[in-house]
């Protein structure tokens, strides 16, 4: 069978104040990154429930990235500090279950870091493409 080129599905949660603005800036500066990345706007990275991340994998995402303000710069002062703890523990747990650690990532991207946003997305997509399809957290019912 001829293998078609693997196009990963990537969900990027971006906080409204820094990372979403950083993504907008990447657009303003016409900095390309793969279209596989789809952004969901959340008020703060701390709005992202681990359930959303698992949900994304269940529905067929191959990688999930969470972007927020740099620690110390949270619009809500402390939101991303909680995110940091939650995600550190969640990622370690997923990996403990044998889920590839490359599938999940947290990046701090400020509103001024359009270039960082684009570079991060390029890198993440390349990483997931190299890793291949998400098999370990897939839900066959949700597969087409």
């Amino acid at each position: 069978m001829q293998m078609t080129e693997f196009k990963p599905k990537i969900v990027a949660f971006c906080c409204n104040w820094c990372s979403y603005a950083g993504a907008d800036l990447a657009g303003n500066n016409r900095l390309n990154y793969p279209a596989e990345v789809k952004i969901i706007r959340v008020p703060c990275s701390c709005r992202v429930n681990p359930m959303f991340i698992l949900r994304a994998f269940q529905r067929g995402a191959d990688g999930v990235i969470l972007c927020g303000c740099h620690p110390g710069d949270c619009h809500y002062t402390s939101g991303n500090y909680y995110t940091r703890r939650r995600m550190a523990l969640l990622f370690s747990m997923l990996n403990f279950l044998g889920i590839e650690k490359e599938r999940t990532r947290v990046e701090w991207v400020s509103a001024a870091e359009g270039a960082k946003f684009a570079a991060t997305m390029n890198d993440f997509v390349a990483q997931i493409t190299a890793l291949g399809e998400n098999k370990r957290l897939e839900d066959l019912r949700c597969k087409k």
Partner: protein
Amino acid sequence: MQKVTREILLAKAAELLAAGTVNRVLGWKAGEFTYDVTPALFTTAAELEKDFVYGPFSGANFSKYLVKETRRDEGKVLVFLKPCDTYSFNQLLTEHRFDRERVYAVGIPCDGMADIQRIKDQAGDGVSGVECDGDNLIVHTLYDGDKTLAMADCLAERCVNCKSKKHVAYDELIGETGDVIDSHRFDEVEKLEKMTEDERFAFWQNELSRCIRCNACRDVCPACTCEKCVFGNPNSGVENKAISDSFEEKMFHVIRAFHVAGRCTDCGECSRVCPQNIPLHLLNRKFIRDIDNFYDEYQAGAEVGQRAPLVNYKQEDLEPSEAVERSGNNA
């Protein structure tokens, strides 16, 4: 150390009932088999005399029952707490889950409880009853007569790796309280961490695929006292009961472990009640070990009013990108 017996507990319960200190007692009652002990509520000395049991299978952690029990009625309820139970007790108090004024807690020492599965492994099929005889257990079997097993060989995993003989909460103590123990409870977690990602995946795939989503782990867990569980709430987006795909149980157990992370006292009830013998406590212990590793050592329930690690932070906390490596996972 004083050995706790049914008689001692009965006497204490009767005394407190008679004095009016309490008007009901949370205790254990035999089920169909002697090893099939279930929690029960007693309101009179006569009821206690008739049904109250205490023995190597009186392992149920009563803390969780206090949430409903303290709402139910006026007056105080008597609860017997093993050292490990007192941690759950404190944790629930920290979370304002029951009214401390409505409880009379009697701390009882504990040398460990038996695990019927380990007994069956040694005595074979058809175990019809188990009796205590000093440091031994006399096991009655249907096909092979009586067998004598050393209690030490029948201890539940959580008791072999007991983390503390110290009571962290009580109104009154029977016997003496002990110390926090430097246990080997993380050895098994460490073993898994040292496996490769693939091996770990295979291990958990094997374990979790046995899950029948009976919810016993959730129902018994003293940290799972939600008024309404997200897994029973159609609006939560994770309410799925059918067990039709391997994703389901991963989602369930990861989310459940995450919800109790930093709140789980490692009482081990989840693994005790799992009908499929899934080592669920390893998930919770992984979180505990990571929390100790990443942040400061933290024992949920050690004190009332502690700030759980997931509702806390430090500016210099480690980054999620460093988590897998720091956690000791071989990846």
